[in-house]
């Protein structure tokens, strides 16, 4: 016990055989296995552990619980550094490093404690009153200074090296809370065979006092149908009995074990829940009630009994009527001198606490008004108990005030799928908690349709009887004493702040909370709310019930962002989709670009080449020799059935009824509102069999749309739709030598112009027996084919093309070159931007006048036929070397650069190696009437100089389509 001046023998959780070294603020200490950082610090006589948020007042350990408001520390160093961790929840491990926070340069000598002198300024709402002018000072001076002065701990700024994960869990009965009530309820209900999950936020079951329940815990742990999740905090209760919980898998270790996450978020779905969340002891409001050495009575008792730690040597107990017999007995056994019990129910109060970094004495005022000062170093406070109603309140239950209990209780103790028990239900003795928990467990088992007997009348009767016999003394604050009386220890909200807020007209507890920040700290008001409500009750002359509580929302207590993200971070934040050619592209040194979820080949640089040089080479290869491009990402839909042709006629605006077998056709699909939805190709493979391609970007939405059309609009149509996008690898082969190369890999198929003219389609075998679909389709404007093979043969197809095309100078090209090729050709792509009509795109002639189709009616709206609409045109800068960007705006020459004279915008732009000029496609108001007009391309966003350009046809290259038909 070297150095552990306050260590006692016999702490239930402590293993004195296993000493553990740790440091706090750089100083070395020793604790024992089973200690928390708080208990170990107290054992070593360290009672001053933190500075408060606003005033930087010295603070000590106040609770033994997760909602500790004072002893928040910075844990670990480096990338694993975590701020604002309650020392009461940090399980000690060998080598633990922790430091105090919110102080500079040191905890004892904190320059920012000067804030205490500025307390008259830092009252409730001081932001709003004090820093109002000059306005620009707020963001540049006031806020940074305030944040620097008032912050708590700091993040490391480094990437967290640990992992977090999520898991799903289903059970029949979820028991929240592993105190004696939770243990007994779980044990009883589990006997019926139901799948029971017991969640406890502490490392061990037992709650405040597990003495005598070791057997129950052991029996529970031995049951195969029971799952116990220690170190797990239920933070939220969501719809359909889904609960969010965080398991602190490795937080009690210096470094997570091999392959272990630091934390795991559980999504638990249950049929029923037993809430045994317990109650939180509350403090009392009195002058200087925040001094190190002021501690909740139950915390003092648990430090002595559970951890073998003496939190002080001479104690004063301040109670609102509790006899605190157990505490008194525990202190006596621990050799702590009990200097006085101050019982508010007898008219006694603490008027002041003396001391700064530690309690030195208290001044008491008796019922006769006489005062006396008693030397002490520990003040144990017991103001009663607040049932932990937060989870119930998350489901919309407004807690009800019980005069007898002087506490807010659950409005409903039972519902169709939940039962409350233990001190949450207002029960004050362990015997009552155990008896009612067993009754609750039996009732839950009954609900689970097991042979057990229980009824709600008995359940409620028990609680009503307990409430009727309760007679708590209504006392929350000491009326005497002039110094600061803290309501919210963590946010430094005082009794005076609440009084000020009510004087300034705030009446709602929700408004007072936000104005004063009471209850908005990491403890979420578990220590403070009741005292804020009591103070409002007094100031406003309303009852506690009339003031009411604030709302409670998830999380019950802070949850790390890492736990919420789980594995979805870094590369895993969303799936990366790979085409069947991915490996081949990698092997060829291709550069990938994210395109939606896909990783597509962007370009294939040769050694020393820039991206632009590579794109130019790839474009010229496709134009002059032959190139090929991975188009596997295109959406592919298989359509079969007797009504397939009729169905296509309805979903596309152009006709398909007469499309011959073995032919493909460009298809344009409108939305119901007449706007263009998507384009693609439809190929008739058989009398009742079609193969549809969609754009890569809209593949899912097109499938959903036509499934909707089939399932909802025309369910009588006899068709079968299948998404076959993943089944096929696709490669576009383009260039003057495309046919020659194709013939080499498909020697058994006649791909001559006669046998396979433009828009022809054939099925057959290539690559020595691989089944394939060939389509004479061109996106590049060249003689081109799209070749589809079963996905696993994608790489083999690419290798074959590369090998057989070598003689012709075949070159793989990526999506950048593909985009240049299609802009040169004038094919629309990014122009389908959910605002354009077929007419805007120059495709109005595709809209059939002989049939009905989706979007036909609304496409005739006057607004969509307005001659003033923007139409697709080409742009060619007067100086071919002048570039411009997609998104730049079009203005008439000499027009003011203002929104009202905006004539459109650039939708696509590229350097055309074929034309030796920058070119673009744009949507320009009355564009087709303005061919030949010189306009200015303006890009105010990038601050670039206007580029004069001529409006031209967007079919820059081979407008007569000679090459695609060659």
């Amino acid at each position: 016990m070297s150095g552990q001046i306050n260590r006692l023998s016999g702490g239930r959780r402590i293993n004195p055989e296993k000493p553990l070294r740790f440091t706090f603020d750089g100083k070395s200490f020793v604790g024992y296995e089973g200690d928390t950082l708080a208990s170990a610090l107290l054992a070593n006589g360290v009672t001053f552990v933190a500075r408060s948020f606003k005033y930087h007042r010295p603070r000590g350990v106040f609770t033994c619980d997760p909602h500790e408001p004072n002893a928040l520390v910075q844990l670990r160093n480096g990338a694993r550094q975590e701020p604002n961790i309650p020392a009461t929840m940090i399980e000690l491990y060998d080598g633990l490093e922790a430091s105090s926070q919110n102080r500079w340069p040191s905890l004892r000598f904190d320059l920012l404690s000067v804030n205490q002198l500025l307390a008259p300024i830092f009252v409730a709402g001081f932001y709003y009153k004090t820093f109002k002018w000059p306005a620009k000072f707020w963001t540049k001076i006031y806020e940074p200074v305030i944040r620097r002065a008032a912050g708590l701990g700091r993040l490391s700024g480094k990437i967290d090296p640990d992992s977090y994960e999520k898991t799903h869990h289903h059970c029949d009965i979820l028991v929240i809370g592993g105190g004696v009530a939770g243990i007994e309820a779980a044990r009883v209900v589990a006997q019926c065979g139901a799948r029971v999950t017991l969640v406890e936020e502490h490392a061990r079951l037992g709650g405040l006092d597990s003495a005598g329940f070791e057997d129950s815990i052991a029996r529970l742990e031995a049951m195969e149908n029971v799952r116990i999740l220690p170190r797990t905090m239920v933070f939220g209760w969501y719809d359909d009995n889904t609960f969010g919980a965080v398991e602190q898998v490795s937080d009690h270790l210096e470094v997570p074990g091999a392959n272990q996450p630091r934390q795991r978020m559980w999504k638990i779905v249950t049929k029923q829940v037993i809430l045994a969340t317990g109650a939180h002891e509350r403090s009392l409001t009195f002058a200087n009630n925040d001094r190190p050495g002021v501690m909740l009575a139950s915390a003092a008792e648990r430090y002595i009994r559970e951890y073998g730690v003496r939190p002080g040597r001479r104690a004063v107990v301040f109670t609102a009527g509790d006899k605190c017999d157990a505490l008194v007995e525990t202190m006596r056994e621990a050799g702590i001198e009990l200097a006085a019990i101050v019982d508010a129910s007898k008219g006694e109060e603490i008027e002041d606490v003396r001391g700064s970094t530690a309690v030195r004495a208290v001044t008491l005022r008796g019922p006769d008004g006489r005062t006396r000062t008693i030397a002490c170093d520990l003040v144990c406070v017991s103001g009663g108990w607040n049932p932990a109603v937060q989870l119930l309140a998350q489901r919309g239950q407004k807690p009800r005030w019980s005069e007898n209990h002087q506490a807010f209780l659950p409005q409903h103790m039972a519902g169709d799928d939940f039962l409350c028990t233990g001190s949450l239900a207002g029960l004050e003795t362990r015997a009552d908690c155990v008896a009612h928990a067993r009754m609750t467990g039996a009732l839950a088992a009954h609900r689970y349709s097991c042979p057990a007997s229980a009824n709600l009348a008995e359940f409620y009767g028990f609680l009503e009887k307990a409430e009727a016999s309760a007679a708590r003394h209504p006392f929350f604050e000491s009326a005497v004493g002039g110094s600061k009386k803290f309501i919210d220890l963590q946010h430094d909200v005082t009794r005076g702040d609440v009084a000020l807020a009510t004087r300034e007209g705030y009446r709602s507890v929700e408004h007072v909370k936000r104005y004063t920040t009471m209850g908005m700290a990491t403890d979420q008001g578990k220590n403070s709310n009741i005292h804020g409500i009591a103070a409002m009750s007094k100031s406003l002359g309303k009852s506690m019930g009339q003031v009411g509580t604030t709302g409670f929302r998830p999380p019950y207590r802070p949850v790390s962002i890492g736990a919420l993200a789980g594995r979805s971070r870094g590369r895993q934040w969303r799936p990366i989709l790979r085409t069947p050619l991915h490996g081949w592209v990698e092997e060829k040194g291709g550069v990938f670009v994210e395109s939606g979820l896909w990783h597509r080949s962007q370009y294939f640089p040769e050694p020393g080449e820039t991206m632009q040089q590579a794109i130019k080479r790839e474009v010229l290869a496709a134009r002059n020799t032959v190139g090929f491009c991975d188009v596997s990402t295109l959406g592919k839909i298989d359509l079969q059935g007797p009504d397939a042709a009729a169905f296509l006629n309805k979903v596309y605006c152009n006709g398909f009824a007469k499309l011959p077998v073995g032919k493909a056709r460009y298809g344009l699909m409108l939305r119901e509102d007449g706007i263009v939805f998507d384009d693609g190709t439809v190929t008739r493979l058989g009398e009742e069999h079609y193969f549809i391609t969609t754009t890569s970007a809209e593949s899912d939405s097109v499938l959903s749309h036509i499934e909707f059309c089939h399932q909802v609009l025309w369910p009588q149509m006899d068709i079968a739709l299948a998404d076959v996008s993943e089944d096929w690898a696709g490669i576009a082969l383009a260039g003057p030598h495309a046919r020659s190369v194709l013939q080499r890999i498909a020697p058994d198929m006649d791909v001559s112009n006669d046998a396979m003219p433009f828009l022809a389609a054939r099925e057959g075998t290539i690559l020595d027996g691989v089944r394939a679909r060939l389509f004479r389709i061109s996106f590049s404007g060249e003689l081109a084919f799209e070749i589809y093979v079963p996905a696993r043969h994608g790489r083999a197809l690419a290798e074959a093309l590369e090998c057989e095309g070598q003689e012709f100078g075949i070159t793989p090209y990526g999506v950048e070159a593909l985009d240049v090729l299609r802009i040169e050709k004038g094919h629309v792509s990014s122009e389908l931007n959910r605002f354009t009509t077929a007419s805007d795109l120059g495709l109005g002639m595709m809209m059939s006048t002989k049939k009905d189709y989706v979007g036909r009616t609304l496409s005739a709206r006057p607004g969509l036929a307005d001659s003033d609409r923007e139409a697709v045109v080409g742009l060619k800068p007067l100086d071919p070397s002048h570039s411009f960007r997609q998104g730049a705006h079009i203005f008439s020459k000499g027009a003011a650069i203002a929104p009202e004279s905006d004539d459109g915008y650039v939708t696509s732009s590229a350097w055309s190696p074929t034309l030796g000029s920058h070119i673009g496609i744009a949507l320009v108001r009355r564009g087709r009437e303005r061919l030949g007009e010189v306009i200015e391309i303006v890009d105010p966003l990038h601050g670039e100089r206007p580029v004069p350009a001529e409006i031209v046809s967007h079919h820059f290259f081979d407008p007569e389509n000679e090459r695609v038909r060659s």
Partner: protein
Amino acid sequence: MYAADTSTPFCLEGMDLAGVQDRSSEANVIVRLNSDTTILRLIPYLNKRQAAEAALTRFGFERLPAPGRFSEAGQYRLAWAGRNCWHLMCSPADATEEQELKEVLGGLAAVTNASDGLFRMEIAGKDAASLMAKGCVLDLDHFLPGHCAVTLMAHTRLHIHRMSGKVYELMMPASHAASFWEWLCMSAAEFGMDVELAANDEPASAA
């Protein structure tokens, strides 16, 4: 000459398939990769379901399984795969099955070959369910052998078949396989994971 390499599933090309063996004890999860299965997607035409069922007796099935169920007959498995859609699976793969099924179901159902589009893996072992639970929202205690589902796991829409007590089979879009594999390796690390490349595995049976 240009035949596809079948030793590694094409959609996992370049991925580390060594498994995760950082633990001292043996792996509690075994992942078996199987690309040697024919998966045929069949969609009955309007009012042709009964006739299609009758035709499927050729493959040993008397009816199309109800939603969420699959059944097995010899080397075949017939599984519900979504609204009015079923998968007929044949393992080991048989190139003639597609044509045969098309002939049998001619005029009764559309048949397409999903063997390449769906990547198939089996997850087995003591901690298979715990691993599954990390990504799957299903109540696996009530997801019994013979049950199947179309659901999400690790951002991926996939088909899950419960084969036996501790054996699950997953079928996912091939494009998602690599991303899913990364998630799987990370999630299985705490259990230890062995990987088996099964060229010709025996069909697992639903109890």
